[in-house]
């Protein structure tokens, strides 16, 4: 139990939906969600596949704990070959959609082929069918959700969809769900768009059962008693991830102006204090509250109302209601990274990313790259249709968000992502990316562990594939980082395969999680077994990427981080010491000096 034991296979080319049993043997070895989804992908898709071709598949995967009462047990993943990265992609989202899919009796949906015309998938428990989505095509996520509910007369439908960004092939388009939750990274929304799949609407009333109900509730209560009173949880509840803004700045790891700097002079204008301060203009604060995802006792989600007098929303009443507010990663990318010190402009750009399904990290970091291209003269008003793009321009940020979401004008170039944009204009070195994916909000020079995590992440630059924070904040030198990174990568891979949220494990140990998992499902789950699953998942992803054509050369960071020293902060004068950390990391992983898993390693992991 806890798994539903059932997969929905949707052949978009043929227009068919078929149920099949979940491979329970794989479930024991790959758990669910990221791990199990990756296993299915690796088994069914050639790693060399063009991500945007019908031969690529896209998997919506829940974990065994998705839909249970484990705190944060509502996570789900989109697993596919990423449009942005040409590598294996696993994008993780919260909200309610994943739990609802599970409630409907499904562990996963595998989408294959390409629909001849736009369609959406409608699921009501056992019943699944593809329906014409012509009337939804060209519409935003915020329009699609109510429209589908109206169409089926069901206010309880939970919906995952792409906005116009996914339709028009923005390389970092997301799959959005529940208005403002995103399977955000690596361009999974572009893959969905390439399949002419606009949305998935699901209503589930079958419920999720666990192996040992009493023991499970006991384990949940014990874990809650640890999580809920913790200061970490309190901070997440009150400040969300935004609390990181001041911390990162202090530590000199706040990527600023396309990583030319590591501290932002305008940080006071884009931090928690500003977000919660009453505005002079309307006497209200930007932040109006917080909200949780399914089963989450943390509720880090921000709810904001934008300043109605801000230039970005003049004549646009639809943006004046409450919406999902800024999280740190969006705020850093629109703010410090692009040099923009205007919280309301950041909020507006964030709304647009939600509304049309774009990854704010990639979007913001691409805007920052464009600003550097503009400042150096590599692009001019000619390319941008007259739009001035200096660092710090809130107007430019707002205009580019609108253009990119709609796929118009210079927005098309921004939609390419930083790597392709900078290559197009002759300056690949301006792209702050790893494996084609844009940097999140931590500069690798002052967080050496994070640098290694970016470089080795299987889905490109990512802050959510390892947990180097506490170690990095404590030690800025590169020694022993390989150990921290490798161990936490394996842990996170297991967490991401279970159905719960990474954030809960800022308090919980793997033991805390394993005791809940074990009560929920068969298999004798321990922290040890979870670690083993994590390492197996990590290595599986790695082998997929190697077969896709990636090599050791892709395990790197932009030259700027490797050669230009940090200009200020605790790590002033330092560069990212990847050369020191990487060989150690390969050894720890049981890979060759070229970063290829040895046969012994593969055997040990039963791969």
């Amino acid at each position, binding site marked *: 139990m806890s798994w539903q034991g059932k997969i929905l296979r949707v052949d978009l080319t043929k227009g068919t939906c078929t149920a099949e049993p979940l491979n329970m043997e794989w479930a024991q070895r790959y758990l669910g969600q990221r791990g199990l989804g990756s296993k299915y992908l690796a088994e069914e898709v050639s790693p060399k596949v063009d991500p945007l071709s019908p031969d690529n598949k896209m998997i919506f995967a829940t974990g065994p704990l998705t839909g249970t009462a484990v705190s944060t047990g509502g996570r789900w993943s989109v697993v596919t070959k990423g449009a942005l990265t040409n590598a294996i992609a696993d994008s993780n989202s919260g909200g309610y959609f994943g739990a609802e899919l599970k409630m409907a009796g499904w562990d996963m949906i595998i989408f294959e082929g390409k629909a001849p015309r736009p369609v959406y998938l409608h699921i009501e428990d056992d019943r699944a069918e593809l329906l014409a989505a012509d009337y939804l095509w060209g519409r935003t996520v915020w329009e699609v959700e*109510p429209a589908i*509910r*109206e169409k*089926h*007369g*069901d*206010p309880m439908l939970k919906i995952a969809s792409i906005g116009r960004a996914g339709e028009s092939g923005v390389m970092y388009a997301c799959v959005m769900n529940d208005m403002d939750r995103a399977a955000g990274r690596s361009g999974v929304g572009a893959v969905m768009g390439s399949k002419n799949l606009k949305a998935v609407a699901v209503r589930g009333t079958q419920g999720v059962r666990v192996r040992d109900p009493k023991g499970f509730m006991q384990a949940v209560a014990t874990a809650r008693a640890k999580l809920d009173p913790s200061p970490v949880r309190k901070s997440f509840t009150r400040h969300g991830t935004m609390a990181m803004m001041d911390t990162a700045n202090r530590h000199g790891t706040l990527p600023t102006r396309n990583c030319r700097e590591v501290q932002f002079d305008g940080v006071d204008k884009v931090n928690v204090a500003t977000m919660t301060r009453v505005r002079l203009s309307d006497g209200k604060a930007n932040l109006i509250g917080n909200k949780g995802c399914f089963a989450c006792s943390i509720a880090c989600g921000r709810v904001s109302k934008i300043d109605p007098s801000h230039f970005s929303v003049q004549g646009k009443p639809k943006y004046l209601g409450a919406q999902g507010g800024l999280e740190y990663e969006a705020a850093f990318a629109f703010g410090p990274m692009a040099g923009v010190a205007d919280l309301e402009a950041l909020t507006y750009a964030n709304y647009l990313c939600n509304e049309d399904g774009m990854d704010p990290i990639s979007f913001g970091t691409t805007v920052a790259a464009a600003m550097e291209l503009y400042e150096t003269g590599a692009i001019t008003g000619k390319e941008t249709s007259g739009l001035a793009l200096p660092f710090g321009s809130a107007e430019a940020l707002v205009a580019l968000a609108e253009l990119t979401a709609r796929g118009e004008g210079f927005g098309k170039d921004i939609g390419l992502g930083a790597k392709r944009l900078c290559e197009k204009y002759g300056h690949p070195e301006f792209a702050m990316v790893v494996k084609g994916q844009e940097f999140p909000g931590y500069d690798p020079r002052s967080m050496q562990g994070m640098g290694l995590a970016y470089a080795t992440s299987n889905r490109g630059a990512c802050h959510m594939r390892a947990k180097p924070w506490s170690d990095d904040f404590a030690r800025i030198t590169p020694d022993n980082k390989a150990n921290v990174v490798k161990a936490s990568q394996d842990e996170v891979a297991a967490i991401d395969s279970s159905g719960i949220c990474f954030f809960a494990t800022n308090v919980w140990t793997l033991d805390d999680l394993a005791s809940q998992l074990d009560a929920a499902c068969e298999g004798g789950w321990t922290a040890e077994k979870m670690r083993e699953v994590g390492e197996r998942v990590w290595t599986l992803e790695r082998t997929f990427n190697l077969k896709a054509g990636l090599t050791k050369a892709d395990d790197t960071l932009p030259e700027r981080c490797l050669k230009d020293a940090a200009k200020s902060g605790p790590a002033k004068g330092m560069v990212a010491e990847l050369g020191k950390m990487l060989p150690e990391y390969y050894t720890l992983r049981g890979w060759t000096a070229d970063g290829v898993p040895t046969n012994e390693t593969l055997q040990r992991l039963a791969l």
Partner: protein
Amino acid sequence: MKHVIVGGGPAGVTAAETLRKVEPTADITLIGGEAGPPYCRMAIPYYLAGNIAEQGTYFRHEGDHYARLGIRYLNDRVEAISATDGRIRLAGGVDLAYDRLLLATGSRPAMLPAPGLDTPGVYSCWTLDDARQIAARATAGAEVVLIGAGFVACIIMQALAHRGMKLTVVAGSSGRMVRSMMDETAGDLIMRWCREHGVSVLTGQRVAAIEDGPTVVLADGQALKANLVVVASGVRPNSEFAAAAGVTVEEGIVVDGYLKTSVEGIFAAGDVAQGLDFSTRTRSVHAIQPTATEHGRVAALNMAGRSVAYRGSLGMNVLDSLGLISSSFGQWQGVAGGEAAIHLDAARYRYMDLKFDGDRLIGVNSVGRTENLGALRGLIQKRVRLGAWKDRLMANPYRFMEALVAVTA
């Protein structure tokens, strides 16, 4: 004070219990016209379906319930009222004096205007005794012809189908099902559903006669041979002896805003009463369970001398036809100038039709939905001004529960 209540249905029983609550020492007599303790008609289908034993239809489950409350319960039938001297005469010969009299005698099946109703094997399904007789003959696989396709007929249909009988429904010349509570769209969905679930529904047919067999002969000459014929084609109020005593009777016994009849000291409640309709503010017979109990309660309070105005009853029904659940509230036909919010998904047997007067909800027909149905009653009966929610409901009528929550919380 001597209270006499005629009728052991929900109206009568609720009245007796309410009286006892507010008048601990009054003399209370409850007269039920059928053998056995008071039971509830609307539970009959569940007895017929075999879900419950006979006792399951009883209002109260402790054997000495009425005695414990000091309510005298008689099994007898009232034959006449003498209003001038405040007395009633029972069939058993007893003569009873009253200070206040409540008529809660309900209704009885209307006769079908066709010969042969007394043919063996032909039953109505109105009393527990009817149900016993039908149950004794309703073996699985038996053929049954059900005459009538109204609300009660549909409930009986569900029960008989549950017993595994083979059903033919003669829906009458209108060709519609549950015409009194459902519009054509909803009725059609229900009919289609019934047919898909193995019930043969004949429309546009009048019953000409019932002949031996029993065999139902239709106006076009078609003969339906059956093991059992159940007639459920409407009811009429048990009001004759009231009329004879000078009480004003139209469709039922006419009552004022306090459930008083035209004759001093005599009240009426339930199916037999023609009382205030919440929606239309006119007087009508509702013949539903919730109205019977509300009538009973309010009538009792007024009999006890408290002046409690009756707010008017809201017509409402919920129907389970072979698993397809439909409901109806208030003015589902709508009113002139009012708007409607309609959603239909015929393939999935889902229908929702909200009727508005301005920005107030006044009536509903729904098919295929069970969640939160009562909220519709709440919105209608509180005459809630929906404001902005009216537009939201126009876009998606299923958001009615959200509308209620927005208004109340």
